[in-house]
């Protein structure tokens, strides 16, 4: 038997900061203010079905855009010289050192009416509104979460043994086939962790939509944020539903990942 002693601090940590809070949220979600059992919180939560759908849609859209941008980018980075690779990865990390809110404010400034982007496009004769819509929210989310997609894909890709690439060439693959038959299938684990790392936080994020979105671009994170001040029970119920959604999503991703590895 292995000694269990070293894991004691982690068990305490998990108990205090994961398990107990979840139980508390569950308890609050199924009770009213007086502590009596009720399902009313959930029926109140279903009032926000549209917001739920919208949130999941924006999260999905952002994840898809992130993947489309990050995958070729990560591939390009792995083809660079080692020293250049480190510099480029560093450049991707630098914006993350800046405060999250500040970065959103920067986008507000950039996108607002008569802001730099609006002005520049007006000169070219293009007029429009670039803030207060789903596009702006997605843009903000992609900007926020792109590094979380690039890094895992890059890490997995850069670990692919060069010998495998040479073996594929040796057996008759041109560079397209090397990519299609070796690099792409072997980078699936990176894609999966990238999707997870982007989708999960973007589904539950808040503030981005408040600053960049329009009146109907409210995300579930914002709702939880608002409701919790007045009605902890409904807030807990919404959180619980969101958790279940994410949990189901993670199981799906895991299942998909395993299947890829076998195929």
């Amino acid at each position, binding site marked *: 038997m292995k000694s269990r002693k070293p894991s004691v601090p982690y068990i305490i940590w998990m108990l205090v900061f994961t398990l107990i809070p979840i139980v508390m949220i569950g308890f609050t979600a199924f009770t009213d203010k007086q502590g009596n059992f009720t399902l009313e919180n959930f029926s109140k939560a279903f009032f926000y079905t549209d917001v739920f759908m919208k949130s999941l849609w924006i999260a999905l859209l952002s994840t898809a855009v992130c993947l489309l941008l990050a995958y070729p980018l990560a591939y390009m980075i792995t083809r660079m010289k080692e020293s250049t690779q480190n510099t480029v990865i560093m450049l991707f990390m630098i914006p993350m050192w800046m405060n999250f809110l500040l970065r959103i404010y920067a986008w507000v400034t950039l996108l607002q009416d008569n802001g730099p982007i609006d002005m520049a496009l007006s000169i070219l004769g293009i007029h429009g509104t670039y803030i207060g819509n789903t596009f702006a929210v997605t843009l903000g989310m992609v900007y926020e979460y792109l590094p979380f997609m690039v890094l895992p894909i890059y890490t997995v890709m850069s670990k692919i043994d060069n010998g495998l690439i040479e073996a594929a*060439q040796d057996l008759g693959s041109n560079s397209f*086939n090397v990519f299609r038959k070796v690099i792409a299938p072997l980078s699936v684990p990176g894609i999966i962790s990238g999707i997870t790392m982007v989708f999960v936080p973007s589904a539950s994020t808040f503030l981005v939509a408040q600053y960049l979105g329009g009146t109907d671009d409210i995300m579930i994170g914002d709702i939880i944020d608002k409701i919790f001040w007045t009605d902890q029970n409904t807030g807990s119920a919404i959180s619980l539903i969101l958790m279940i959604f994410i949990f189901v999503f993670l199981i799906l991703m895991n299942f998909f990942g395993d299947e890829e590895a076998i195929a």
Partner: protein
Amino acid sequence: MKQTAKKTIISLKDIFMSYDGEVILNHINLDINEKEFVTILGPSGCGKTTTLRIIGGFIEPDSGDVFFDGKRINGTPPNKRNVNTVFQKYSLFPHLNVFDNVAFGLKLKKVPKSEIKRKVTQMLKTVDLKGYEKRSVSKLSGGQQQRVAIARALVCDPDVILLDEPLGALDLKLRKSMQLELKEIQQKTQKTFIYVTHDQEEALTMSDRVVVMNNGVIEQIGTPEDIYNEPVNAFVADFIGEANILNGTMVDDCRINILGKELECVDKGFGKNTPVDVVIRPEDIEITSPENGQLVGTVEKSTFKGVHYEMSVMCGKCEILIHSTKSAEIGSKIGMKVIPFNIQIMNKLLPFYNNELEAEVKYSNKDENYFEFELEGETITVNGQSFEEGTKLRITLPPSALSLAGDGIGDLKDVYIESVVYKGEHNEIILESDERKWLMLSDTDEQVATYVPLKFDFSKASFEVING
């Protein structure tokens, strides 16, 4: 010889390759015939893998031509060469099972599915992996992975298979059986195999011809018997099998002087009183009574090896190794006899014994009795001597005046160890600096193909003024 009648399939012409200013391949020429099992043999860092990668198309030589079946293929990418490689680390695709790994090349060639199935099944049978089709490659043993890698290369039906130390990761027993299996596969399939290894036994066991490389040049090409029985120089003799390599003097045609005794041999044309290297294989020395021996020595060590005894005999200051079915007691005096045919004479690796250099005195200090000169960009200080500034000198350094600087600070900083040959008394080490080669004697075994700092002991040197 038979081979000359065969068709040349791969031809390397004057291949030169350098990396970061270091010469990896120094103008190599090599012809490989169809259906031949050729082994490129050499110590690590000799350029053998580079040669293989040039044939495979993974790297381009700086200069020189690669011909395949008479056509120049420089610049042709690996996927367009009719050559397949078995890589050192196998490089099997971890996301594919055994069948799909082997079928990889055929699928790219758009071979019909039924054909692929037939060929892959057939090939897996050849390498003794029938029934393993659906297994994951990561669950196979080293030997099985090795055979998948061979099957994957063979199934594409290339004219030439390149094998880069494919048995290096296997244990001894498996390696031995795989050697025979590989040879069998080569004979069954009638393909050209180019095999790279640093294991001389492997090379002798499997090859039709062996190419011995060292320090970016080909030292010798020949059948395993040729290479073993008639090595061209001390490096090859030392690298292939066990050998007594001795310093000798060719007195005249068929007369050789070794260890102070004049013996009869069969080699001619070395001139009179020429210093040469002499090879005598340990199994070629016959033990006799001291009166009947050509050489006399005292047994120092004797180890029973099953088939024979391995004995170390001191003959004067020189150690001689003998393999014999007869044993002799430790401490006893024995005679040794070698028939003339078994004394192999070779030219010295270097045309000189003492290291000579010419230098001009750059700075001289008469009071403290030292001077300085420049050598390959380094300023070298000589204590205990002084000459006028500007004097041209010829400095002669005997091999014993050279040493590897233990403190790491040498007169020359990075000197390459080209070869280390044990000559019974000392190791004779050949070093290469930027502009020349050096001969050094050492009692320690130095690592070939490494860079070391070189120190000169000028108290053992002699100085001669050239221009008064």
